[in-house]
């Protein structure tokens, strides 16, 4: 009973309020950003009332509610010759897998059960994890559930009985299957460095400092792994530049025949996948809820100006830090949409199999060698910082393409 209520409360906070809320805000951000990039105004109309003659639109945020309501009250159309049963269950798959993945992610530090009234906590429970499912093989389950997500696209595309939808579904399946290989192998570096498959203890292992000031996050000991993971996970979410399964201007996508909330679930599921990717990247490479210099083991201090002691303080601020980091990674992913053009399908496959896969294998062996040389990970971190500095140097001082001058005639 305690387990049930605790899990539901965590699900309501992290799954419903944070993840679905953030997914909804991301749809708005994407619209604003697209409008900004294309010199448009974007969503500005939806409002309930006017203030001083001007509609109160809250920067277009009310469009989220308008979109949701409009999708709810539309007619769900099932096309002729479609497979009725499979057509109906397909939208549920992506949505469910995204939410179940969130269950494994620790969104805050664990609390001693003594901070709660003793009557709430049953015998023998000493730690309250801010994580719905504290499972030993957590990261492997995340990968395994991630591989289920493709069925939403495959089943939806097949059931629609539409060429474009079927093509979209097939492309989505082949693409996510290809990048899953790279995604899975990229994480091996993290497994070797931290020696655990439980996401909570991976976050715990990222405490401490490198060189006395730099947080010992996964990013600073697995920079190549972080980049590969980000690319592969972006491909899994099927967003630009990897959006051939959708290709709005070409084949529309596997959800082509879907309408009303059936489409809404597909779309919400996709934005939830962005949140899942952000949360997972934060957990594995950005230290999860940790923030050195700010959050200590039992107190929170903002440069000595403001201190707040106790495990509750750490838990609250840790959760906040986690949410902010996740939001940061999500917005980084949104930036890609108007930064990079769409790949061709053969380019996507080549990138997955001929670039990411060999690089992931090289990463495994280099990491293994460096950990073998020095199990305390310091040599690994030196090399990693070196790689990051080299990369920054190349970006700043490297050769630049001269600006393309438009020829008038």
């Amino acid at each position, binding site marked *: 009973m305690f387990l049930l209520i605790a899990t539901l409360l965590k699900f309501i906070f992290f799954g419903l309020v944070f993840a679905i809320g953030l997914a909804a805000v991301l749809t708005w951000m994407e619209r604003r950003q697209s409008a900004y990039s294309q010199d448009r105004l974007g969503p500005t109309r939806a409002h309930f009332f006017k203030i001083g003659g001007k509609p109160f639109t809250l920067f277009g945020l009310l469009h989220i509610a308008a979109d949701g309501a409009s999708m709810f009250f539309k007619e769900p159309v099932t096309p002729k010759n479609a*497979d009725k049963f*499979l057509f109906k269950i397909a939208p549920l798959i992506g949505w469910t897998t995204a939410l179940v993945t969130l269950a494994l992610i620790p969104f805050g530090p664990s609390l001693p059960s003594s901070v709660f009234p003793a009557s709430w906590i049953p015998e023998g429970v000493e730690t309250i994890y801010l994580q719905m499912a504290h*499972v*030993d*093989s957590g990261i*492997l*389950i995340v*990968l*395994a*559930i991630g*591989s*289920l997500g*493709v*069925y939403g696209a*495959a*089943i939806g595309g*097949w059931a629609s009985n539409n060429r474009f939808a079927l*093509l979209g579904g*097939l492309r989505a*399946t082949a693409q996510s*299957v290809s990048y*899953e290989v790279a995604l899975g192998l990229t994480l091996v570096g993290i497994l070797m460095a931290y020696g655990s*498959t439980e996401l909570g203890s991976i976050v715990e292992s990222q405490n401490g400092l490198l060189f006395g000031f730099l947080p010992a996050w996964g990013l600073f000991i697995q920079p190549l792994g972080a980049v590969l993971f980000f690319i592969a996970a972006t491909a899994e979410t099927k967003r630009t530049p990897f959006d051939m399964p959708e290709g709005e201007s070409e084949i529309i996508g596997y959800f082509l025949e879907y309408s009303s909330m059936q489409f809404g679930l597909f779309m919400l599921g996709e934005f939830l996948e962005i949140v899942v990717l952000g949360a997972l990247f934060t957990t594995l490479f950005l230290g999860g809820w940790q923030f050195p210099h700010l959050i200590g083991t039992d107190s929170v201090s903002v440069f000595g100006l403001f201190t707040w002691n106790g495990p509750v303080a750490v838990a609250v601020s840790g959760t906040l830090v986690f949410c902010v980091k996740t939001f940061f990674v999500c917005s980084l992913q949104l930036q890609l949409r108007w930064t990079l053009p769409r790949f061709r399908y053969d380019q996507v496959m080549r990138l997955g199999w001929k670039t990411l896969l060999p690089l992931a294998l090289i990463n495994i062996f280099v990491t293994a060698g460096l950990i073998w040389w020095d199990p305390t990970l310091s040599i690994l971190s030196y090399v990693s910082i070196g790689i990051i500095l080299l990369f920054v140097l190349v970006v700043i001082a490297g050769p630049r393409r001269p600006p393309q001058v438009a020829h008038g005639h």
Partner: protein
Amino acid sequence: MLEQVSPSFLLFVPIALFTVAGACGVAFSRNIVYAAFSLLACFVGMVGLFAFLSADFLAVVQLMVYVGGILVLILFAIMLTNKISEVRRSNPSSNIVMGGVLMIVLITALLGVVFGFPWTVGAPQPFAATTETIGRAFLGSYLLPFEVAGLLLLAALLAAVVVARKEMTPAEQDGKGGTP
């Protein structure tokens, strides 16, 4: 066992029923695509059974390899096959008599084992993470099978490439250009 209905037994029954229902769907479905998706249900039920038996790594492997990999392969194979859209033709039931005889023999044998074997009910084991134990087994007593598995995978890979490559005459190539 039935007289003491424990919470874990209540959890076991739906998982087992789900698995068996999936398996029945595979066997009895007249539509091969439905059969494939019933296999999905069956595999997912197996994941539940592995988790129920505290074999967490095997549950993950079942999910990753069977559900996430082999079933994708089966679906692609179905979609690649010609005239698969005529579901009545793609999944005919034949040899019902032979199948029935085989089924009766197998069920008798299985029931014989279930009721004839002196099962001992062990104490519930405390849960231990199995990933590391399996890793140690790979590096210890199962070192050779582990490497041989690598060779087997290599053979599968080479065979796939060879089978998918069918030499075509230039005329055929002109006729069938481009992937969809």
